[in-house]
């Protein structure tokens, strides 16, 4: 009983912050509530959901968002691990290098995105000028659908790799050095140390970074909004941007809520599947050495 009382404030907070908006959006998704209804919610018998299922644009945005999330997060984890391994070495001016490597993370996303929009600008950005003078050819980075999404991935990697590196560096510092020394006595190479010691012991931190980053990347919004506005040809539009536009630009709150709930359900089932796969794999691995 006293335990319940102690838990109550955080429980109320959780409900207020998490559950209530979810219920509200869930309710809204079964209503027409838009500029056309004078912003009054009118039940519409699942019309939003029907539209959602057939909304090719949403599915395109979903694929684009997943593509953005997986490519950028994978790159961030790999690069973040490499940077963390380097920063974990005894370097000269290590404190300075460590703190300065965090600058991209400290910059507001919109400021950074404006910067990248200029850098990738054709024909005035430095990258294009370099291409023009070097190859005599222009790279229409932000105006070409096949390239534009890569520039947003690139900007995201630039911004958030330091964050991943920081988490992994914290993880690296929890690994006792004598584990490596014991392995060295056995003749382990650096590669074996990385594979057998560093990565397994870093797994909780890798998982943490992965969760944080996937959740953030799945909701990517301001970066895309500023860099490309979703274009060209909506090739960089994310589901968060689409939901935002439906709400604030189109004043269609019913459909915006549908997009959010639909994405929430999709993401939750994705996480559930990932969790199941990991659990099964782990259980299987545990049974390898029978007596």
């Amino acid at each position, binding site marked *: 009983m006293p335990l319940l009382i102690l838990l109550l404030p955080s429980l109320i907070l959780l409900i207020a912050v998490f559950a209530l908006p979810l219920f509200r959006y869930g309710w809204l998704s079964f209503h027409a509530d838009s500029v056309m209804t004078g912003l009054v919610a009118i039940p519409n018998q699942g019309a939003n959901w029907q539209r959602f299922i057939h909304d090719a644009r949403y599915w395109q945005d979903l694929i684009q968002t997943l593509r953005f999330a997986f490519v950028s997060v994978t790159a961030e984890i790999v690069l973040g691990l490499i940077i963390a391994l380097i920063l974990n070495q005894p370097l000269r001016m290590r404190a300075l290098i460590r703190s300065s490597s965090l600058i991209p993370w400290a910059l507001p996303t919109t400021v950074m995105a404006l910067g990248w929009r200029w850098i990738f600008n054709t024909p005035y950005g430095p990258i294009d000028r370099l291409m023009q003078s070097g190859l005599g050819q222009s790279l229409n980075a932000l105006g070409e659908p096949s390239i534009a999404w890569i520039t947003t991935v690139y900007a995201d990697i630039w911004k958030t790799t330091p964050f991943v590196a920081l988490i992994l560096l914290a993880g690296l510092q929890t690994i006792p050095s004598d584990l490596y020394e014991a392995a*060295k006595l*056995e003749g382990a190479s650096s590669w074996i140390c990385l594979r057998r*010691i560093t990565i397994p012991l870093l797994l909780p931190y890798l998982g943490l970074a992965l969760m944080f980053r996937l959740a953030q990347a799945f909701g990517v919004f301001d970066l895309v909004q500023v860099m490309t506005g979703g274009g060209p040809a909506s090739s960089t539009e994310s589901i968060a941007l689409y939901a935002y536009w439906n709400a604030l630009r189109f004043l269609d709150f019913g459909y915006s809520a549908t997009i959010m709930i639909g994405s929430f359900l999709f993401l939750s089932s994705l996480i559930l599947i990932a969790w199941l796969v990991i659990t099964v794999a782990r259980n299987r691995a545990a049974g390898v050495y*029978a007596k």
Partner: protein
Amino acid sequence: MTLELRQVGRNINNQWIVENLTMTVADNECLALVGPSGCGKSTTLRLIAGLDPVSTGSVQISGRDITTLSPAERSVGMVFQSYALLPHLNVFENLELGLRIRGVSKRERTSKIRQVLDLVQLWNRANNRPAELSGGQRQRVALARALLREPEVYLLDEPMSNLDAQLREDIRPELRRLVLEQRKPTIYVTHDQHEAMAMAQRIAVLNEGKIEQIDTPYNLYHNPCSLFVARFIGRPQINCLKDESGHIRGVRPEAIRFSDSGLSGKLQSREWLGNSQLLFLETQQGVIRIMAPPEQAIPEQIRLTWRAEDEILFNAETGLRLSR
């Protein structure tokens, strides 16, 4: 097979961590390295294992110079203070890793691990992860890993310091048996002199990176070569009395008796040790510790005396032993 250190030293930023270390550990011998923390015991082990480079001198095994070899090439089996077991692998996998690296076949790996786990009586825990084992069991796994290496030299870095006092005493005979059975030069680092005396045939006392004395436990106790050794070995600590001539007279607490004449003192406090009692007596020459039988009555007028041959004389400035 012998392990030999010749004038080995390690210098970092113009500071000697260990200096001019020379010693030989014979086949079938366990040598304990003792000394206060920071005296260079662990560094010495790391120099032998090749985990740190030496600045001067050489390390030899049976006359073969291994000073420049990598840790893997040295054939040393080491037990770390923390045991250094990988938490995500079970006992079997922890032991298997080194064998795999060295390219031992699957069949041979299994039979070797079985053999060594039987030896340390842990075959039934092969599938357990380190977190599921007791401290003593973990220590035996770490030892098993060193044994699997079939090395020419064993290095044990404070293997008991993570265990509670009772367990240490229980485990000692078993550990002694396992180590001595190998008949290999063994170095045993500890800060606990009782453990050192129990485990080792000889003890090296280190002080500020240098060897003060290497000798048998008996000699270290009875014939310390310096005040440092005299004070470090033996609990309760030796009494140090200042002489009129400026020398320091060391007298072990158990050598002092009550009598009718001699140094007079007053009881300050006492500690019960079960089979004896430790008395702290205030005298003109400072506080003196004496050991007395538990039933010893404390006389009203305390007078203390001891035999001249129980006195050890030290130079007050250098701390070195003076020949009588």
